[in-house]
């Protein structure tokens, strides 16, 4: 059987409710880990934390690449490509700016 058919069946056989609960579990656990890890970040690093987390929210680039690369319809491809550009601005800008800020905190350089 060709790959798409296999994939479609694999997705179709998972109960939609079960799939939702699987993702919800991931969501809540990750949220919990986030609270635990981030409450330990000191105040003086809050600006790099904001810009760094900002860069990570650009993860939506993954979704954008997949939906644009599927070439499903003209509109979905164009919307997806626009999303790739915007998300990559977010990713690159966020990481570069965070690095720039943290370098200033780095005493070795001086």
């Amino acid at each position, binding site marked *: 059987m060709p*790959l*798409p058919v296999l*994939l479609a069946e694999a*997705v179709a056989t998972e109960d939609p409710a079960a799939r939702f609960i699987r*993702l919800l579990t*991931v*969501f809540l656990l*990750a949220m919990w880990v*986030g*609270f635990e*890890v*981030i*409450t330990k*970040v*000191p*105040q*003086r*690093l*809050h*600006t*790099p*934390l904001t810009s760094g987390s*900002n*860069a990570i929210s*650009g*993860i*939506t*680039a*993954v*979704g*954008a*690449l*997949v939906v644009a*690369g*599927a*070439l*499903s319809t003209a509109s*979905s491809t164009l*919307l*997806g490509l*626009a*999303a*790739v*550009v*915007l*998300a*990559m*601005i*977010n*990713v*690159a*800008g966020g*990481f*570069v*700016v*965070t690095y720039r*800020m943290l370098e200033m*905190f780095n*005493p070795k350089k*001086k």
Partner: protein
Amino acid sequence: MSSQAWINLAYLGAAMLFIVAFKLLSSPRTAVRGTFLGAAGMAIAIIAACFEAPIVQSVAARGAWPLLMLGAAALLGGGIGATMALRYPMTGMPQMVALLNGFGGAASVLVAGAELASTCNLAFCDSDPRATTAAASLLPWTQFSIATALTGLIGAVTFWGSLVAFGKLEELPQFKKAWTDPRRHWINIGLVVLTLLLVWGVCTNPDRTIIFWLLVIVGSALGVTLTLPIGGTDMPVVICLLNSYSGLAAAAAGFVIDNSVLVIAGSLVGASGLILTAIMCQAMNRSLLGVLFGGLGTTAVVSGEDVYAGKVKSAGAEEIAMVLEGADKVVIVPGYGLAVAQAQHAVRELADALEERGTSVAYAIHPVAGRMPGHMNVLLAEADVPYEKLREMDDINPEFAETDVAIVIGANDVVNPAARTDPSSPIAGMPILDVDKARTVVVVKRSLSPGFAGIPNPLFAADNTLMYFADGKKAILDLVAALK
């Protein structure tokens, strides 16, 4: 193992790297490594995405050009982002972060929109084996339809809210005055009702894409009307909140395309934004609802004349330099006004001049000093102030009693002792820096005008306070000259 399993494994690795990156951000020594690990996680996730079945199939059907097209789009975005990040000055960080945030939110909206368009198209294509799955996800009230609606809404609010926040922080003339029309509450309520109706519409009729785009338009309007009334001091809260929204939008997009790395990364960012929002609200003694719906907040007009009458002592650079010459321990309290005057380098010169004379110098940083969380630390770090000297409020407050001179530059409400002593004050209970306990307090300020809370500051009339009326940067430079 199927290729999908390898891809999922790569996503898992990326998610772990994000968590480690956040963990390493808890110390300035490891934070740079954290950034690199975060970026590595992002790179792994992006490369893994290129091996997802839909992309592999397009490449199989049409050759390499779909990949080239994606690469070009990614490079274009990355180039724009990196250029912006390298050019922006450190004082403009809050605007820059707001803008980047907005792009993230917009990208999530477009992902949901594109996925909706492609799923609707697939569902009507009987020949395609994926048609059944697509049709099933378009049924009312599925994970797909609910998540699509939420992504559209949160993403649109994030994008437009961030643009307005950018305009305000950049001090564009159009955003100079906060929008205080009393009818705004009715407009917001109307928009919220409309939004809920449209969310319900998308959930029940996901195959009608027009409803989704209407929701995006109304969400955009809501983003604007919710952010416009918020005043300049409350901006740190807004930035944190929008940061949180952009994460939640990405997580919701993860539910749309059934992708766990989006869900994990999105919820980490969502959590981080929520924590910072709570910290900021606490430090400003305001409730989140007060910030969001209170507009300019307390506008109680209390006359300063009774408080200040005849008691304010003013001094010039020479006189203050003499006081400083006799000091062993000096604490500098920089505030929002210092960021506006861009006097951080001048302050560093002053600290150097004092240290040359053997005086110990520390900086007391209030959590809301600056225009975003931790902004003052970045500004002082840029001026080469070693981070060991930047002390947090709870850490340095007990030391003011043994401080000879506290120099307050461009801060007002965060050093107002009324927060501690006067239970009827609008800022009663707000955590403040206890500078009034220092032997001498020097306040550098242009005039006796009240701070953002609109109330007089008894500190200015205290016996141990010297007011130095001048523009922040010039005042400090004069002081340095007088010391030498």
